[in-house]
């Protein structure tokens, strides 16, 4: 079932900048869909249109079958957004943020307390519940924002560069959280310019270049389409960095020839699978 339908979507800002042009795709329920692209490619613009925060100027976009421009009120109770570089208020605690967000979204007091505790435990924030966010690390602050977005049990979660500025451990915690959500049937639309993030998370991805869709498909399809195959690294057994060749054979026969030749010469052979970054570049 398609929960997001985008047809020939376009966006030109009031000052004339064309941010999106003829973008079309579908996202199915429970999918992790990554939008990849360079800074300024149009990822955030697309996410904001789908999250009903920004008006499109051409084409159409529907979320749960509702038009983002004409029926935003039917969409909003079922989604949540983590905006790019959102941050909590320094003089409030994690508890304050999450509980108040529950109340703002309309939960009864008891339900808000129960939900706040549950979400804080899920995000390993409970032990920090009374600390002001000024005293929390960047990773914990980001978790507070994510928790604020997730108190409503959204059916679609929009994440705009959610791991920017996080350390490797913090990034992995966010990835684990995204996977837990999709296991529960939540659909995730995530923008990133970290290739490893998209490679590890995406069920499908779209690459946006100058406001247009340059590619849509799985990570493997992206790598295959870019024509980047296995890399073979040949170096002397006592590798010192001076005698190192990186080869990109075009066929299995060529790989076998390289391996055979290298072994005869007493050189070491290692294989490096292609990455999404290779395909992207």
């Amino acid at each position, binding site marked *: 079932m398609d929960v997001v339908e985008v047809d020939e979507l376009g966006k030109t800002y009031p000052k004339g900048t064309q941010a999106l042009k003829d973008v079309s795709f579908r996202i199915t329920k429970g999918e992790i869909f990554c939008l990849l692209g360079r800074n300024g490619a149009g990822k955030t613009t697309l996410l904001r249109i789908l999250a009903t925060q920004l008006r499109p100027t051409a084409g159409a976009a529907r979320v749960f079958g509702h038009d983002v421009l004409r029926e935003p009120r039917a969409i*909003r109770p079922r989604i949540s*957004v983590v905006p790019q570089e*959102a*941050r909590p208020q320094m*003089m409030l605690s994690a508890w304050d943020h999450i509980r108040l967000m529950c109340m703002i*979204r309309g939960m009864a007091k008891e339900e808000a307390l129960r939900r706040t505790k549950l979400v804080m435990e899920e995000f390993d924030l409970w032990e920090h519940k009374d600390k002001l966010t000024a005293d929390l690390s960047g990773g914990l602050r980001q978790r507070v924002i994510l928790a604020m977005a997730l108190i409503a049990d959204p059916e679609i979660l929009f994440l705009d560069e959610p791991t920017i500025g996080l350390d490797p451990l913090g990034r992995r915690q966010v990835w684990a959280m995204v996977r837990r959500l999709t296991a529960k049937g939540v659909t995730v639309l995530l923008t990133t310019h970290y290739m490893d993030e998209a490679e590890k998370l995406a069920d499908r991805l779209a690459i946006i270049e100058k406001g247009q869709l340059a590619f849509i498909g799985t990570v493997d399809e992206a790598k295959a389409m870019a024509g980047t195959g296995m890399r073979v690294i040949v170096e002397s057994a006592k590798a010192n960095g001076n005698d190192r060749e990186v080869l990109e054979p075009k066929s299995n026969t060529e790989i076998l020839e390289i391996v055979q030749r290298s072994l005869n010469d007493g050189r070491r052979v290692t294989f490096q699978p292609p990455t999404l970054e290779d395909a992207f570049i």
Partner: protein
Amino acid sequence: MKSSLLRQAWYIGLLDSLPLLRDPMLLVVLSLISFLPVFFLFLFSGGTAAMPALVGAIVLTLAFIGLFAAQSVYFYKHWFRFQDMFVASPVSPIAYTLGLSLSTLFSSSPSVILALAVLVWNQPVGLVPILATLAVSALLWLSMVFAGFAIGASTKNTRRANSLPQILGFVIGFLPPVYYPLSLLPPSVQPFALAIPSTHAAQLAKHYFGLLPAPLTDGDVFFGWGYLIAFTVAMALLVMRKARWVDP
């Protein structure tokens, strides 16, 4: 999970005002700015000049607090990004506006109530003049909230979001005859002073407390209220043009 508008506004107001209540230095500073001239007038001229100035300070505190909404709007939109989170949720734009507007009003109410108590102690009046003064102050506050929203929504620059309300505060607070009588200005300058809404608010409030050298005529009172209402409507139109819930 049905949420009423007022409930949403209350909790958005709480989200905005809790940091100020926990660290009230900013509100103390805002109150000090408007009450400082009263202190000096009392030192140098005694109670005769200080009481009318205290009326002006009450009116201005609310005006400053209204302008201060510019910072909340700016920071919620561009710094914390909470506005984006609220737009993509069932939160109503009216609740959001109401919440951010009222948060600073609640936080500043202790200083206004204290000043009002001092004023009534020294210048006893009935309930109607007190209510009329509060109504005038509330109208000026509302117009300044609209101005604050227009500034906060249309700037993408932190320094401008901080400095513009301060400059405007200076223009509406310290230049026109808010602390001092209108009659102190040369007749040629008085029309310019009357173009500033805080002049009318202060004149009306002083009139209700019987602190003007000569009471206002009915025509002056009518004109003062009319000017304030017209200015508030103009600011409301400005904010409707500048502040958008869904970005264009």
